[in-house]
């Protein structure tokens, strides 16, 4: 696979340091240059008033059509509550072996669960979520290794259990794709 870059596009406000540290983690995991950009979407088009959430499937499709480029992996970063029709919420979504994915930190915040705010924790969780969704764009499926970033996470506690790193097996798979 002839890949040039990974592009992280922020939709909404993110502190620069926050984005930069995420970019560094992504560089480390995928060994590819990372570009950071700002994106602009009218999110109201994707809002479901009945559910009071934003349609993740439609957002992903939009990011893919407007921002994704062949030869790159693009990830949209959001701060809103995402859903897909069948599930009550998602942390993120990606096209498996596709060009793009999305991730949101909305559900990663402790406040949503009535626990004291922990900014470092939100940061760690979001990094893992970004690497996870990017992993899907490289064709990685969920991993059974309990510490691998590709392990499936349905609760924030699951995210806390795993590391931000790919396990040796998943790393090997990525390396073979990037040759």
């Amino acid at each position, binding site marked *: 696979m002839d890949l040039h870059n990974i592009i992280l596009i922020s939709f909404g406000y993110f502190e620069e340091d926050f984005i930069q540290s995420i970019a560094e983690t992504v560089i480390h995991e995928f060994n590819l240059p990372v570009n950071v950009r700002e994106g602009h979407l009218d999110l109201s088009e994707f809002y479901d008033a009945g559910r009071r959430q934003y349609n993740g499937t439609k957002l992903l499709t939009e990011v893919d059509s407007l921002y994704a480029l062949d030869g790159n992996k693009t990830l949209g970063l959001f701060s809103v509550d995402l859903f897909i*029709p069948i*599930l009550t919420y998602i942390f993120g*979504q990606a096209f*498996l072996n596709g060009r793009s994915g999305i991730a949101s930190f909305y559900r990663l915040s402790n406040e949503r669960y009535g626990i004291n705010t922990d900014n470092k924790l939100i940061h760690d969780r979001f990094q893992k979520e970004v690497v996870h969704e990017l992993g899907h764009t490289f064709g990685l499926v969920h991993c059974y290794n309990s510490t691998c970033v590709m392990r499936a996470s349905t609760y924030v506690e699951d995210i806390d259990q795993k590391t931000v790193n790919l396990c040796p097996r998943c790393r090997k798979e990525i390396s073979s794709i990037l040759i």
Partner: protein
Amino acid sequence: MAKKISILIVDDEDSVRDSLYNWFMEDGYRVECAENAKKALIILESDTFDIILADIKMPGMDGLEMLRRIKLLKSDSIVIMMTAFATVDTAVQALKDGAFDYVTKPFDPDDLSHLIRNASKQIALVEENKTLKQKVVSLENVDDLIGKSEAMIKVLKDIESVAQSNSSVVITGESGTGKELVARAIHSNSPRKFFPLVSVHCGALTEGLLESELFGHEKGAFTGAMYNRKGRFEMADNGTIFLDEIATISTKMQIDLLRVLESKCFVRVGGNKEISSDFRVICATNKDLKSMVEKGTFREDLYYRLNVVNIYVPPLRERIEDIPLLVDYFIRKYCASMNKQAVTIDPVALKRIEEFSFPGNVRELENMIERAIVVGNGKKISLKDLPIDKTVISNSIESLEELEKIHIIQILNKYNWNISRTAKALKVDRVTLYNKISKYGFKPVD
């Protein structure tokens, strides 16, 4: 590496199908979609899926009707029903119709993961069960039916051809030939093998006791009936009932038996509640049932009801070539059960066994070998360990020379090759005895 789980998603909404498709693809599953029940059923005609996730409300055939049809195609299918409009009634109906689970859309991601995990565990359990059952089948085959003779090969072929059907079988043969073993082999190779094989020795019971044994009885049905008792027909539900010595049953019992065989319904002795039982019948007899029918001692209608297939088990004298195999089998069996070192058998003793008529057939041979191991010296079974009466000579021996040979070796063994004592017993001189030993090539046993 574990087999990839396969999921079929059946939902009329594109967004639901796409969401679930992407979700499950990320888990590494094999996923396919169908936009309605009809298309799903077409897919299922040529492909199998571990899990089917189906919406209930769909245009045309709804999910519940599809569930029923899927269960008819493959009863152990795992079908999870989903709906946005949950009601207790539809949930109950779905589960009654065989749904694995019932979920309301939208579901919590963790709930979806648990659901698929539970379904995967169920699939793994069913596979493991199938594997274990196959192992059980390989242990309970026809290993106890020893023989390579043409007659025994025919018996084994008959068992193979009849086992898979539900047909009634009558096994005929002399006493001690292994008719019950044949019945067990039929049952353990049949689809009923995981249900009971219930045996009843009709010849050992009086009419009243046999009736109670077969039909069961209610408390108080007769003096001493303190509790309700399940009968053998009831115990054999989904399995097989083996009626040994069927020719001994009374005329009244023949009528009752015919009624049960035809209706598969009966009432316990002293009861009035009709009980049904789905069983297969295997009978055994050492009598000629056809002759009994002609003489009027066995009902013709019952005879034809039972004798759909007949398996004849030959007497031991019709399969002499199987005797060494049987002897070897019983030696190993009894040495193992008595915790003894394996013994061998003297060729002369084996020859003697082969010439014996065995009116009691295999049962008598087994008894003989068991006794020989008990009384023997622990290393080799010799002629002196066998309770074969020296005056009982096989009908196959006609020449005087053969008779002389057998008699001399018996006496030699009796006196442990003491030449003086043997000669004295035979009423010949030592020189004559030595000449006979040389002529017949006798050698002392180790």
